């Protein structure tokens, strides 16, 4: 966890004072709604369907237990006692009062939290792999680089009024758990000759109305150039990105219009003329300084195997199921990472109450060095748990309603807040997620289906990442009523793919049944239990699924895929 020094803290306090003054001027009628809008957005404040919404940054997903306690406290005192974790690892409060927001930000600043640039047409909060620093498959620990990017992007004077928002994701593992391919800039930390750290730089990815996978602009960018090269990308975008049409304003459209090669040339030209090897070139001393301000877990020397754990796994099936889904490998012997599921059936995905936040903070203090991670799948992670403590963590998490064993499974649904809260949404997301979760609440059935990402967005803005769900559900407006378009075949991670729509949209009460039919079809068609839903879709294509889902009268599932395909 990076700890602020006096200068970081002073700038944060000055930001709070600046926004307090701006809010007061707005409330006094001295600042118009239009002029206040970008100021409040860059401080995380939206005006939503029923009330303002405050989006609090969790920079690259790292959260200390005292920060989570503060969030619990703020949610209770200034809101309705709960918050919502979003796919960009921010925490959203749905009911704050505009005039109290400066006070909330001052409270947050006391624990080094803020809402800077969580919205607006600027460089947004940086996102990263939620297993950064602990994943066994990691090539480079991205956390130091994320913090450098946080400092560089915070209050960047040149890029506060871009054509549109700009999202950066960082991963240090080939598994890419940060979905870097769907970011405006994706940074994949790699090692070059002699082990030198550098970044594969992707540009122009994004979901939304025009989903596009990012393209490689640089195969290997040596680390000292990270900031100056990003500035060149941003400068070209800032100058030439479209400003006449909000739907064509992201960098991906500029890239599409110019082509990757021409765009790369422009960036290189700007970089060479204005920044390369300049003072913003990173230094080894700075990497060391930032690294030293991170508190690192003081790991104990432990055996890799824990006999107590083996016994517990053998005697409790419920624990074993949770272990199978929610416990992840760790680079240090004797430790594991644990996902606390915020996807309990009946609760909006990503929602967490103040009481739960406090329980989680206590778990983090007791079992994981007081640190937490927020995942883009809207769950929380205890990244450093001793294997002998897993059973105790499970019991306590269970008591707090955070031990649903569904990570990587169908009910670990990613969903945006949807029409229940968001003024952009065409349709509600939460009731659909809940319907589906209820339909698949049988654990044996859920485990039999195996790994499956199901993502729901309430509109084309795609906050619920429906394009990259194995099953994606998109809320659409059809003659004034809520309908849902279903796609399959999307995937995140390396070589991400975008799902294809299977056919006409469904009514709200038909979605769970459509998903069930997709699953029936998959179970009938899969080549083996090891073949995941997404693998089957890739192997046989979407046609058999489509025919099966829309067939009327509905056929009985059969184990014979040929019979199925001709049904």
């Amino acid at each position: 966890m990076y700890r602020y020094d006096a200068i970081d803290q002073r700038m944060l306090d000055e930001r709070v004072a600046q926004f307090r003054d701006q809010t007061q001027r707005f409330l006094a009628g001295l600042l118009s709604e239009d002029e206040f809008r970008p100021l409040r957005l860059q401080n995380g404040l939206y005006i939503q369907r029923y009330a303002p919404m405050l989006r609090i940054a969790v920079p690259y997903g790292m959260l200390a237990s005292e920060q989570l306690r503060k969030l619990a406290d703020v949610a209770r005192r200034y809101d309705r006692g709960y918050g919502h974790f979003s796919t960009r690892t921010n925490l959203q409060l749905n009911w704050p009062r505009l005039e109290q927001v400066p006070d909330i930000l001052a409270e947050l600043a006391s624990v080094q939290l803020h809402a800077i640039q969580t919205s607006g047409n600027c460089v947004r909060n940086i996102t990263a792999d939620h297993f950064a620093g602990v994943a066994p498959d990691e090539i480079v620990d991205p956390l130091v680089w994320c913090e450098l990017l946080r400092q560089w992007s915070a209050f960047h004077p040149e890029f506060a009024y871009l054509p549109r928002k700009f999202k950066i994701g960082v991963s240090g593992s080939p598994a890419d758990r940060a979905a870097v391919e769907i970011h405006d800039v994706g940074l994949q930390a790699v090692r070059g000759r002699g082990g030198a750290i550098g970044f594969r730089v992707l540009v122009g990815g994004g979901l939304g109305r025009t989903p596009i996978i990012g393209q490689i602009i640089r195969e290997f960018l040596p680390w000292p150039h990270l900031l100056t090269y990003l500035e060149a990308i941003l400068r070209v975008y800032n100058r030439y990105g479209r400003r006449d049409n909000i739907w064509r304003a992201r960098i991906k459209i500029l890239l599409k219009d110019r082509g990757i090669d021409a765009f790369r040339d422009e960036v290189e030209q700007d970089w060479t003329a204005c920044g390369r090897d300049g003072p913003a070139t990173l230094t080894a001393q700075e990497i060391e300084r930032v690294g030293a301000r991170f508190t690192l877990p003081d790991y104990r020397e432990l055996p890799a195997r824990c006999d107590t754990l083996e016994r517990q796994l053998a005697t409790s099936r419920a624990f074993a199921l949770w272990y199978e889904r929610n416990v992840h490998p760790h680079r240090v012997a004797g430790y594991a990472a644990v996902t606390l599921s915020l996807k309990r059936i009946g609760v909006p995905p990503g929602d967490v109450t103040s009481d739960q936040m406090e329980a989680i903070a206590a778990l983090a203090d007791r079992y994981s060095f007081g640190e937490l991670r927020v995942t883009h799948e809207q769950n929380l992670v205890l990244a450093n748990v001793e294997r002998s403590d897993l059973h105790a963590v499970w019991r306590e998490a269970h008591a707090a309603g955070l031990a649903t064993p569904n990570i990587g499974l169908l009910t670990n649904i990613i969903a945006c807040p949807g029409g229940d809260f968001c003024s952009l949404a065409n349709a509600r997301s939460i009731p659909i997620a809940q319907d589906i979760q209820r339909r698949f609440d049988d654990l044996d059935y859920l485990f039999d289906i195996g790994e499956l990402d199901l993502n729901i967005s309430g509109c084309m803005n795609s906050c619920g990442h429906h394009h990259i769900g194995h099953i994606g559900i998109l809320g659409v407006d059809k003659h004034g009523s809520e309908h849902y378009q279903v796609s399959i075949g999307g995937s995140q991670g390396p070589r991400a793919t975008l799902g294809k729509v299977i056919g006409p949209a469904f009514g709200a009460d038909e979605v769970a049944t459509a998903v069930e039919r997709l699953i029936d079809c998959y179970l009938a068609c899969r080549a083996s239990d090891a073949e995941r839903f997404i693998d089957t879709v890739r192997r046989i294509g979407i046609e058999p699924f489509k025919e099966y889902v829309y067939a009327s009268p509905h056929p009985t599932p059969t184990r014979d895929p040929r019979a199925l395909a001709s049904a």
Partner: protein
Amino acid sequence: MPHLIRHRHATREHWRLLDAAALKDWRDGAFESGIQHAGVLIPLALWLEQPKEQRGAARGAFGVVLQGDDEPGALAADLDRIALIAIEFARFNDGRGYSIARLLRQRFGFRGELRAIGDVLRDQLFYLQRVGFDAFELRGDQDVAGALRAFGDFSETYQAAVDQPLPLFRRRIA
């Protein structure tokens, strides 16, 4: 007469924006009297239309005005005889002028006055001065005292920019 903040001091100055006809009068020295103006501003396209020798011979208080979609590189050859470049913000939240300013200062080495004109508001001043502006013609309704305070919104900055070419990390004591 508009409020102009130059090097963090408030003054009142009117600079007259020229069209083609007025430019001709100004060039011929046949400029009509009227509203007092401290100087004239010439849109980039008009400036570039002038024959090279005319541009070289231009004297007096004048500046060239760039819009968000103008290329600052078009002025590269003239920069040493231009004392003032104004960048016009059609809307306060059109960020192109920020990059143009930085390019003029950093890439093309412009040392003269760089003035923000148009929809110039108090809440953008801090960032504007960071990217190289040293003069600001405020929109008519802006509170000058408040605007002057805005330059002090932050006592430190992370990034390298024009006002502070060294990023914080090169100045920070660990």
